[in-house]
């Protein structure tokens, strides 16, 4: 049997999709965290800058038309005390520069209640500027007192970079956890498939009942088509069995009629020549009907071997039954067929096939053995399993024929005048080999044939 054509794997596809999703999510989370962090950092810097600028603005007094600004120490120290940031400031009254760095630009758009911010480059460094203003009275009337405080961004950048590293770590961790979860999820998602596979492959070869185990809804169509396939298989199997039975009936019934009529004619005829002719006729009919029978037997055996049963079989019991059934026939030839050593030993297999094989060996023994001969059957337990030896006191197998004799339609040379198609031993060999065993032919030291069937341990 060839394996299925495999393209892709549900589990791998599921795993990859989950991982891709996790990767996208990780990147998004990382970006969001970064932007939030930047925002938070900016906001806190802005707050400090605003506080500093406001404290400068608050310290401005207007006295006698002049504006005094006492630069409070804390106003700037609060900015550079923690980090090594450089701090700049500029105080302007209207358009007039009062103190600080004259070049420091102001952030546009500040109102008396709310500060304005901007990021820019000052003296070759990136800075953040907060600008606040309020109206003061001067000699020249009401004027805007504007205070801008700026701080370099190097420290904030370092903090952000550190935070970046942390969030990268978190992202990586998140991704790793996702990988593990994906593996677990994809495994558990394909679990029902494995269960179904196991339940189907655990079945016996002739077990064609529908799958009854519960399955998830996604698998229901698969299971129901599997069930309908098995139903069709069941139908076609029973149909082919019917066909074999029908064929057997059709071939053999006319033969049965002819044979019976010939026998009646033989009994009624007083003419020796006619009687001799009728005997030959019966002989030929027996030959062809046995051939037809063995062909059908062979078809039946082949059919059953395809779906070999594995029952536990008591080999001694099976042998005894077969011998018992043979007694009326062996009595007719006054052949004494006896059960010898009968060890209790079991093999795994199809009882009907094994019985058929045994019967074929027995039939041979009875057929090829002269009147008054003896057939002994031994069933013995061996180290490697079981063996059945069927010995007769007939002429034995010709040495040159041993190998060829088991081939289909190859009859032994000494079988002249004895009805048989030669299929018998072929059937025996096929049955025994299908059970993992071996058939060997030999001649007894004291004369006569010995057929040995060996079976492996069950």
């Amino acid at each position, binding site marked *: 049997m060839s394996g299925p054509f495999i393209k892709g794997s549900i589990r791998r596809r599921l795993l990859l999709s989950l991982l891709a999703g996790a990767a996208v999510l990780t990147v998004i989370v990382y970006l969001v965290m970064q932007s939030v962090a930047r925002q938070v950092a900016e906001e806190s810097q802005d707050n400090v800058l605003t506080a500093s600028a406001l404290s400068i603005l608050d310290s401005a007094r207007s006295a006698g038309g002049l504006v005094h600004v006492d630069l409070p120490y804390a106003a700037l120290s609060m900015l550079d005390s923690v980090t090594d940031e450089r701090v700049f400031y500029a105080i302007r009254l209207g358009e007039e520069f009062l103190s600080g760095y004259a070049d420091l630009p102001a952030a546009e758009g500040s109102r008396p209640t709310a500060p304005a911010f901007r990021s820019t480059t000052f003296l070759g460094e990136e800075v953040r500027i907060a600008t606040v203003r309020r109206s003061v009275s001067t000699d020249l009337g009401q004027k805007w007192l504007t205070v801008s405080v700026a701080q370099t961004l190097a420290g904030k950048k370092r903090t952000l970079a550190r935070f970046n590293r942390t969030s990268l770590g978190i992202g990586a961790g998140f991704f790793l956890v996702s990988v593990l979860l994906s593996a677990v999820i994809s495994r558990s998602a394909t679990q029902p498939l494995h269960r179904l596979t196991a339940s189907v492959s655990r079945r016996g070869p002739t077990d064609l009942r529908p799958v009854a185990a519960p399955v998830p809804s996604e698998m229901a169509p698969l299971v129901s088509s599997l069930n309908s396939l098995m139903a069709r298989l069941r139908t076609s199997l029973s149909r082919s*069995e019917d066909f*074999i*039975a029908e*064929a*057997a*009936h059709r071939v*053999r*019934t006319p*033969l*049965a*009629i002819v*044979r*019976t*009529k010939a*026998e*009646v004619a*033989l*009994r*009624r005829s*007083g003419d*020796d020549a006619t*009687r001799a002719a009728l*005997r030959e006729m*019966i*002989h030929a*009919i*027996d030959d062809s*009907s046995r051939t037809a*029978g063995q062909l*059908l*037997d062979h*078809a*039946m055996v082949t059919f*059953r071997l395809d779906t070999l049963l594995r029952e536990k079989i008591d080999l001694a019991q099976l042998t005894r039954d077969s011998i018992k*059934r043979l*007694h*009326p*026939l062996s*009595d*007719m*030839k*006054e052949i004494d067929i006896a059960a010898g050593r009968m060890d209790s030993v079991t093999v795994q297999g199809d*009882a*009907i096939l094994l019985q*058929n094989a045994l019967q074929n060996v027995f039939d041979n023994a009875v*057929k090829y053995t002269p*009147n008054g001969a003896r057939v002994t059957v031994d069933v013995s337990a061996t180290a490697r399993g079981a063996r059945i030896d069927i010995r007769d006191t007939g002429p034995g197998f010709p040495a040159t024929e041993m190998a060829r004799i088991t081939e289909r339609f190859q009859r032994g040379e000494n079988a002249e*005048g*004895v*009805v048989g198609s030669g299929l018998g031993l072929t059937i025996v060999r096929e049955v025994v080999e299908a059970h993992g065993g071996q058939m060997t032919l030999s001649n007894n030291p004291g004369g006569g044939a010995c057929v040995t069937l060996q079976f492996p341990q069950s």
Partner: protein
Amino acid sequence: MRFLLIEDNRQLAEAVVDRLKLDGHVVDHAGDLETAWDFAATTDYDLILLDIMLPDGDGRSFLARHRERQSRTPVIVLTARSEVSDRVGILDLGADDYMIKPIDFSELEARCRAVLRRRGGAARNLIALGDASFDSLSGTLKVAGKDIQLRTRELRLFEVFSAAPGQIFSKSALVDRLFSYDEEVSENAIEVYVGRLRRHLQGSSVKITTVRGLGYKLELA
């Protein structure tokens, strides 16, 4: 003996009936299950021969019903070979034996005898012959108060003679009755068995005499 043959193929049935009649048996033939039931309900048979595939049903249903009625009449099932795989079922349903078509009549005889013997005494065929008596079922010959167990061929040969005392049987006719058709047997082989029977019959008024040039006959004197 009285047989019931249940077989739907008319030609085959006729041939079988003819053949069984040759041996002096009485045979009723039923072509379907319904007829078979009518026969079985009204007549006491020694043995029923049953085909499995019948036009109005399965022979196995006959078997099951037959056993339900607790009838002791043994049943031998006749099957086409591939049905052999059903034989477990056949024997479980209470068949006493089965045979594969085409029927070999000497085999049928042998199996009938085995089945009837197993059933034991249901139909004892004790024939009185002069001062001897013969039970064909158990195969015993009683001569001068002594039971002699006949071996298979002696038994069959004596059956042939005892069925028609005084009739002359040629050697070749006896060969036909004693040996199966696949055996090459010389007619002289008959002398061996006649000799054995004569020894068994010593001390009795029953004799097997040679009719020169024609054969043998049984004389009751």
